[in-house]
């Protein structure tokens, strides 16, 4: 009877430990599955590299009726006289 009692203790202890182990593992795994991973910009190379611009964009709020002091953007095609050095 003494041996049986000892074996009962061993069996139930193992059973309870297994239950707790499976439960804790499942909660830990479930928590890892749904914790959002923080986005790290530097380490991830962009698929479409954007060329860096040296000029800082000028922003100005213009009220209606007033002219903007910021000159309009110059056209990209150079004028004819510059091409022939005149």
């Amino acid at each position, binding site marked *: 009877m003494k041996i049986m*009692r000892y074996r009962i203790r061993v069996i*139930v202890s193992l059973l*309870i430990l297994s239950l707790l182990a499976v439960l804790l593992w*499942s909660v830990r*795994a479930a928590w890892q599955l*749904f914790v959002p991973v923080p986005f790290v910009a530097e380490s991830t190379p962009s698929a479409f590299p954007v060329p860096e611009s040296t000029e800082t964009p000028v922003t100005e709020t213009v009220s209606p009726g007033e002219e903007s002091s910021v000159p309009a953007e110059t056209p990209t095609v150079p004028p004819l006289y510059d091409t022939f050095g005149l």
Partner: protein
Amino acid sequence: MKKNSSFRSKVAAILILFFAAAFLLPAFRPGTEGYPLIILSGAVPASLLFLLYFPGGGSFLDRPLLSAVVTMSGFGMVALSAFSPDAALTQGMRCLPGFCFLLVGTVLIRSLRPSLPAAAVLLLFSFGMLVLPLFLPSLSFALPEGGTALLLFSAAFLLNLRLRLPALLAGLCGVLLLLFLEDYGSALVCSVSFMLLFWAVADSTLWSVIAAGALAGTIAGFFCFVPPVFEPAEFSLFTRFAGMPLIPPEAAPESFSADSLFLLLGDRFGLIFLLCSVVLLILILIRGTSIALHARKGVFASLALTAVLLLGLRSLLFLAVVTDLVPLKICDFPFLTFSLPSLFSDFFLIGILCGISGQNEADLEEDARLSMLAR
């Protein structure tokens, strides 16, 4: 004694307040059908009070064990009340006949004596319950839990009568039947319980090794001739388990799938509540072990161990299936289940434990009486 009674009063007060609030608060919400919840807010605390304070109940009712069982069943009703008050009341009505099976288990232990005819009758009933689906294929339910319990009880009787070979043959036949019925979960629980029971009770390392080898050989041989059929799951249960909130969400989910009451509890009350349910089950297992260790006769200790093994291994299998560790069909968590046969078998096992606890109390009283007479 005073400490025990004050602790019992505190536990009773906390549980009664919890269940009364859990059922009454949603009952008075606008748009909710309140009368089923009002009935439950009275019935569940009343049954707890009855079990904890019924005079003379200590001789055949194990109060801590039954309080844990009623609390666990109450959790199931509370989970369902968030979705449908009628479903919660129906679950409560399902637990009522379960208490009849509990009384059957208690009476069986107090009246049955370990003998060859008793073992044979239990074996006959167990095989009858297991092969029922073969003879009545139109039957919508199966009885593997009850059949497995009776099979292991008969094996415990045979082992205590030192009939190791018949016990081994009975176990092997039972496991083969379950494999033939493609109930691999029940076969796994039955084979592991049988192996552990054999090791604990047979009192022979050689026979334990023979039993383990025979079981492993039988299972391997069966799968050689009949390859296992694993049905792929429609969706991963672990994803559903992982999607549960940690703490109860503000609003209950709009709909629920009736596959598992345990998972429903998680959807409604979060992982914290599931952890509490598992801790409650572990307390039930510890109480069952205490009853087994205090039993005077080996047969009662082995029956109590069988009940603890069946409850514990079924929960372990359930958690392993839900977390995708084992590729089997989802089974039932003890007491948190929609399946009537499973619920009745759980109450029957608790009845067995209550009966053995009552027998232990009777033995202690007999000892006290004899010591008084000796003086």
